[in-house]
């Protein structure tokens, strides 16, 4: 018969979200916690993020990814109630909080948890998902897998590269490739603006004179065995390529940084409702999902710009899971968020009344000099862009229960071109 273990809390994922959530839950008094990580070591994506720029918000100092992860690993060691299971993959989560795992060390093990925190992170959108025509040779990598091959494995993956997409990992990898002597011919971005943080555009492209082609895309991949070149074309206002204005770039490597997708296959199995705007679970101010006793935080909930925000948010989820296990925060009153003008997404989607809730808001398009309205709250913003999170903490007095919802919108701006 299968081995079933009863525990208070299972945290699925040992990256920054899962580690912060487990530590916070333990600090809040939860006793039997199991933290499950599919890789052989903790840290999620952080160990391969060897660049700096982490920790400025959370630790008030600048760290590399491995250093940032290490801080949490040291914290974990102080909490004997947290049992860490690395090299262990969760294959199923049920609505009644059974968590089925598989590992080389223990085979199949089932946990019956009183609460579950989902912290699986996200994955990269592959070539097929954006349907780039052409051949299927070696030399096409997503930015994150390239980063793994270089920074963890120490391999030289190519000699000349073109990067499609200006997400943060793509920008970071443009610099990384350049530093290793790999020529980056261009970074191409479909949209008329970068999808990454402005600081990364400056520090990773401009400082290294790597050309950024906005409103451009790859229209074909060439090469039978290895990438030989890519065809590139500008796109019109409808984002369709203007092939007649196209040109070819010779390269042996094509790097894709075309979006991150929260990994919610397990959440769906458990019956958790997802928000189409974020690809992550619908959560309330406690990061409680629509399934009782199941919480979600970090990039599985919504893709963050900064790991610091992941830690902050996950600590909220960890403390909330502890409160839930004490019998609190059940049946709390909340109001739904309603996305208005120029708002793509807002997390949490359900705001608990009577307390302040920090919001992560994302705009649909770039704009200048806008007025952010959240319920009765107002805040001026000089620039908003889809690539940068808009932060706002909504206060209890800005919420009116009689409205039935909390409107979030950006008003009166000028479209930034």
């Amino acid at each position, binding site marked *: 018969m299968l081995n079933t273990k009863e525990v208070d809390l299972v945290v699925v994922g040992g990256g920054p979200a899962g580690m912060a959530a487990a530590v916070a839950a333990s600090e809040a008094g939860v006793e039997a916690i199991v933290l499950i990580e599919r890789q052989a070591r903790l840290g999620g994506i952080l160990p391969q993020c060897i660049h700096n720029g982490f920790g400025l918000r959370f630790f008030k100092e600048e760290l590399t990814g491995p250093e940032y992860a290490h801080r949490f690993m040291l914290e974990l060691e102080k909490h004997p109630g947290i049992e860490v299971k690395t090299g262990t*993959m969760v294959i199923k989560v049920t609505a009644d909080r059974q968590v*089925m795992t598989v590992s080389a060390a223990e085979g199949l093990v089932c946990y019956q948890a009183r609460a579950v925190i989902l912290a699986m992170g996200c994955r990269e959108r592959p070539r*097929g998902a954006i349907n780039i025509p052409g051949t299927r040779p070696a030399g096409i990598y997503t930015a994150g897998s390239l980063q793994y091959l270089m920074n963890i494995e120490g*391999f030289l993956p190519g000699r000349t590269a073109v990067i499609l997409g200006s997400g943060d990992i793509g920008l970071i990898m443009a610099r990384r490739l350049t530093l*290793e*002597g790999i020529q980056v011919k261009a970074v191409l971005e479909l949209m008329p603006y970068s999808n990454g943080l402005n600081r990364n555009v400056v520090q990773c492209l401009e400082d290294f004179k790597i050309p950024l082609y906005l409103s451009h895309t790859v229209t074909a991949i060439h090469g039978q065995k290895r990438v030989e070149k890519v065809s590139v074309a500008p796109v019109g206002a409808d984002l369709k390529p203007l092939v007649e204005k196209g040109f070819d770039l010779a390269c042996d490597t094509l790097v894709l940084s075309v979006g991150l997708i929260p990994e919610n296959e397990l959440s769906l199995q458990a019956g958790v409702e997802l928000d189409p705007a974020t690809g992550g679970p619908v959560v309330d101010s406690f990061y409680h999902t629509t399934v009782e006793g199941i919480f979600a935080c970090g990039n599985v909930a919504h893709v963050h710009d900064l790991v610091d925000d992941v830690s902050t948010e996950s600590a909220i989820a960890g403390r909330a899971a502890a409160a839930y296990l004490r019998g609190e925060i059940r049946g709390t009153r909340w109001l739904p968020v309603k996305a208005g003008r120029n708002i793509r997404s807002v997390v949490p989607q359900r705001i608990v009344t009577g307390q302040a809730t920090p919001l992560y808001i994302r705009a649909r398009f770039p704009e200048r000099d806008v007025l952010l309205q959240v319920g009765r709250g107002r805040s001026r913003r000089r620039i908003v862009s889809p690539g940068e999170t808009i932060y706002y903490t909504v206060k209890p007095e800005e919420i009116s229960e009689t409205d039935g919802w909390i409107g979030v919108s950006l008003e009166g701006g000028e479209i930034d071109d």
Partner: protein
Amino acid sequence: MMAILEVDVLVIGAGVVGAAVVRELSRYELALLLVEKEVDVSFGTSKANSGIVHSGIHDRPGTLKARLSVRGCQLFPELAAELGFLYKQNGAVVVARSREELAGLEKLAENGRANGVKDLSLLSREELSRIEPNLSAELAGGLLAPSGGIVVPFDLVFALTENAVANGAKLMVGTEVRGIKVEKDGFLVRTNRQPIRTKVIVNAAGLYGGEVAAMIGDHSIQLYARKGEEYLFDRKLEGLVQRTIFPLPSKVSKGILVIPTVDGNIMIGPTAHRVENYDLSTSVSGWNEIYSEARNLVPSLQPADLITAFSGLRAVGTTGDFMIAPSMISPRFINAAGIESPGLTAAPAIAEYIVELIKESGLPMPRKRRFNPLRSVVRLRDINPQAQAELMQKDPAYGQIVCRCEMVSAGEIRDAIRRGATTVDGVKLRTRSGMGRCQGGFCTPKIIRLLSAELGLPPEQISKNGPGSEFLFGRLRGNQAEKAKEEKEYA
């Protein structure tokens, strides 16, 4: 001078036809050799096959295509049970897009009955939407062929080849036939490797069948390539359609289909366009054609759920039928050419047919006393938790999940390498690792390492699908010492 390899039958080309022929021949006491110019079996046309076991309703009565595909379709259930490849008899439905097309369905049903296809039934639009609720409400009716099935095409080729090898056949990949000399009692075959002397040749060289036949002076095989593009959707759409959905066929092809794969994906395609060069690119026009046609059948398909696309080349002959016959130059040189659709379906029957042709050529063929028709592989995903747990207890490598999207373990990947995979694509096709929604983003580096360790080659020599498609160009600065250390280990 290299020693000459002496065999009774040489099969050229390890696609589905060559694999089926050599497996059928392995029932007899013969020295068999299967050669393949690619680095792995099933790396040509068979890799990109739609994976449909056709019922046989489409083909003109009296043709080899009709006879062999109906027979092949009948052979599949037992063959799958013996060889453990991924197969499902899910049934096929041909749909009429308008009232005008309903007459076409009746004609197709008559055609099928003439070919001996059983249990065909015409469906009203209500019956159609009851059994396939996600089909377009605009459709006027359907023709149900319950004997139709789906199969994972490369898995079929691996199964056939592995079973043939288990029964004594020899397989040589990366072996290209360069010239054939007709001798008194057979042939002397020049390759890029060892020369081969054989009594009988089966030419199953697919797109290259004409070139191979020409090596003995047989210029009767004229082939061209017809490209087909296919687009694959995420497994979350599993169940969108249960049966393979066909439009009413045109003169040139069976049209754009909506295919549920055995693994639970939905696939749409294929196009059918004659091409002059053998490149395997996909195109914007191909996608537009397929997507607009497929949406006429299943309107809810969304490009956001795509995970990959690929294309393949069918070898099309000049006769409109399979060209399976002894060559006019020599009765012991058997062409199996122009095996376009329904070639995969027909393959087991083509094999039987070719065995008869070889017997007729006078080659003595005593039956093997100890033929083992069975083959099995471990697929973690397809067994129940109890069996999984037992397996992991016996061998912890089955508990180490490498491909998270498709749940493939290090144990299965190791097995695949021992079964013959030498490349990342070879592992992928044998195990499904890298075929899921992340398309190998997480597992490819790990598979490179596993191949490197199991084959005893440095990671730089591990390729996607053969020489020229290596992933890595060397080590980064500061990792040279590690490289030197590893090279010592491999040496």
